[in-house]
């Protein structure tokens, strides 16, 4: 009897084990399906066609948040700064020395429009020239010039513009400040910023400093006369489209040379991942060996895989998505001392890149890109985009809070749409045009049409 009981117990245990195995197998099946699909896509064996749209959507939604939040934070900070310190200032004509045409209310609208157009066209021509110079320098190996320029410009922005805004805010708050403490604080602030941005630093501190730079810059640019800003934004969006999507643009040459050299492009890029510099060197050597072996293997194997892996259609690692080569209209012709400083500043906030790369592609892909991007598998957005979004918002902040809210929503919507297309197409895409298009439309409709309606309806407590 006892033996029978034992046998029954053993049978029950076997059943339980089998059930567990089946469950485990089913779980692993689902996991394997996921992994295999992603693996096959990465290896170029399979089209990420409609079947894998959900994977793309999932990745896109995860990464969208990391990009949306800093953009939102910069815009809110800019609104704060302008609503407190800059709004009630009389227009001092900060850019009058630099601009070819100085706007004044006395001229007719057509004349102002023409003059503003001239200003904006000159600015963009200068931007073009400067990008070409940058590309030439980079291709001929003069990286050190660009790196030094970046350091210099970042330091100047953080110290001088930081001091300016600080003083404006203290003027608004009616507080006093002595020159000793100001000097100490601002120099430390500037030096810390340059170190974190151009060398090592904690991730959060790096991001905060990049946000601060874009806030300061947008606050300064917001003192431009009205017509020039709008025309400049429109022309910049068009310029961005043309430069990024053209097949023989300077940005693509930059990117290709960067890939060949394996060095990072000197420029200010906002990325949401951590930069482990010490580990990178070790991994670099190992992965170089891996890549060499893989290259040999791939040559012997069928060529179809390599062809498919190079096509833009598939999800690939570190496909750089350029959006903007940001410069400001301060890069204008004359021999002004200020201009020479500011000229350089913008150039180095160069190609704004949106990168999407997957963690799992670490294993199997060629690491031709810059070493810093080896572990950087997150979406990146160049600082030029931050600056011009916040410039638009600053123009809205001068008017009214309703325009601020609507332009805010418009810009974020445009950014999310561009990221969606980026996830679909896996190509270099400009981040500026869509958001600026939406932003400008929303701005003009709210400021001229919606605000009077709202004020009238609010008084009579009517809610639509």
């Amino acid at each position, binding site marked *: 009897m006892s033996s029978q009981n034992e046998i029954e117990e053993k049978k029950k245990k076997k059943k339980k084990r089998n059930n567990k195995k089946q*469950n485990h197998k*089913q*779980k692993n*099946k*689902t*996991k394997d*399906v*996921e*992994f295999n*699909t992603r693996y096959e896509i990465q290896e170029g064996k399979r089209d990420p066609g*409609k*079947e*894998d*749209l*959900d*994977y793309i*959507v*999932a990745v896109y*939604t*995860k990464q*969208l*948040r990391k990009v949306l939040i800093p953009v939102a934070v910069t815009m809110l900070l800019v609104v704060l700064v302008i609503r407190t310190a800059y709004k009630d200032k009389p227009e001092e004509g900060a850019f009058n020395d630099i601009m070819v045409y100085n706007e004044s209310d006395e001229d007719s609208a057509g004349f102002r429009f023409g003059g503003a157009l001239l200003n904006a066209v000159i600015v963009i021509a200068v931007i073009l020239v400067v990008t070409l110079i940058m590309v030439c320098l980079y291709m001929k190996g003069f990286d050190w010039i660009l790196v030094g320029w970046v350091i210099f410009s970042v330091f100047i922005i953080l110290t001088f513009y930081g001091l300016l805004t600080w003083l404006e805010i203290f003027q608004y708050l009616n507080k006093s400040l002595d020159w000793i403490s100001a000097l100490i604080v601002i120099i430390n602030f500037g030096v810390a910023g340059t170190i974190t941005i151009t060398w090592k630093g904690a991730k959060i501190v790096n991001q905060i400093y990049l946000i601060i730079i874009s806030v300061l810059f947008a606050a300064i640019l917001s003192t431009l006369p009205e017509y020039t800003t709008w025309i400049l934004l429109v022309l910049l969006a068009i310029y961005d489209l043309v430069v990024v999507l053209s097949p023989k643009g300077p940005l693509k040459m930059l990117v290709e040379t960067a890939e060949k050299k394996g060095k990072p492009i000197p420029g200010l890029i906002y990325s949401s991942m951590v930069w482990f510099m010490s580990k990178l060197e070790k991994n670099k050597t*190992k992965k170089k*060996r*891996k890549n060499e*072996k893989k290259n040999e293997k791939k040559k012997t194997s069928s060529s179809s895989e390599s062809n498919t892996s190079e096509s833009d259609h598939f999800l690939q690692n570190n496909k750089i998505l350029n959006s903007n080569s940001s410069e400001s209209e301060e890069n204008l012709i004359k021999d002004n001392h200020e201009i020479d400083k500011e000229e350089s500043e913008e150039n180095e906030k160069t190609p704004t890149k949106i990168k999407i790369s997957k*963690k*799992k592609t*670490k*294993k199997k892909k060629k690491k031709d890109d810059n070493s810093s991007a080896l572990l950087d598998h997150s979406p990146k957005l160049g600082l030029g985009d931050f600056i011009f979004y916040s410039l638009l918002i600053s123009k809205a902040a001068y008017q*009214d*809070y*309703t325009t601020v*809210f*609507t332009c805010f*929503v*418009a810009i*974020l*919507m445009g950014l*999310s749409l561009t990221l969606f297309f980026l996830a679909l197409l896996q190509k270099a895409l400009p981040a500026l045009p869509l958001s600026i298009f939406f932003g400008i439309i*929303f701005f003009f*409709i*709210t400021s*001229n*049409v*919606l*605000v*009077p*309606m*709202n*004020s*009238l*309806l*609010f*008084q*009579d*407590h*009517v*809610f*639509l």
Partner: protein
Amino acid sequence: MTISRFLGCLLISYSPLIALFLKFILKDSKLLIISLSGAFFWMLSIFLSSILWFVVSPWKKEHIWTIIVSFIFQEVVRFLCFKLWNKLETSINLLSRINKQKRKINYILGSIACGVGFGFGYVLVMHTGVLTNVIGPADLYTTKCNMSLFVLNSFYAQAFGLLNVIWTSIMFLSIRNYTKKKLKGKPKRKYLVYLFVSIISHLVESLILLVNSCTASLLVLYLILAGLIILLVKLIVDTMNEKKNEYNLLKQNQESSSNEDKNENFSQEINFLDDNKSEENEKNKTDILNFEDEDEDEDDDEDDEIEKNDDLDEEEEEEEVN
């Protein structure tokens, strides 16, 4: 209006939306995008109505025509939003069914997210946009309720913010339940009745604010709001019951047919019907409001596996080199 009163007004008008946002929407990033697009589309609708207001000058002081026109535009845009959302959702669910992946979007939560977006856009534009211009030492008084105009308006804005959530969710769920393919039975007409009720309530609510008496406007507003909440709860319960019935019917169909690979077909069908379910949670079928965790957790596990394999490869290569 002092800053303390301003903060009070903000809290009055935003509190239900913020509660919904923090509870349901922050955890899933897809819902964030949906609410953002909801705010975007609401703003488009209000632009259309304001452009009409701007162009047609006799309306500028008679509010009834603007109310009717904006009502039409808002409902049309809500319907367009529903169409867009439906397309997205069906495509994503189909694909995740094919690949047996858990990347679905819960329908009820998605509709609530869209509604929260509409609500946020509404309150931002109609209420806080004007309120921020009035911060200062003075206050405006109405005879309507013997209280400050701004506080009264913030109460109205609170109601309308919640109402937008309810209108969108009722519209989405009722149309979906009416048009969904069923294994058995006809589409029920009660869903159309719900839809009609919600649409009419919008018009009623916005027109009731023109009435001069205080108690009438506030009472009617909040009574209709309460009624609509009950309607929404009823709708949600009905959808859950229908899903249950569909599941049971499918199970019966499966059992009647003789298939060896029952389990696999089962899992496919189950995943198709029940949002965000795995084979483990078959018991908790009625918990439709269980939303999935962020995808990062899944990916981290797989990343760990791959990183282990990475180390193995490196060791192998080192051995080869040596």
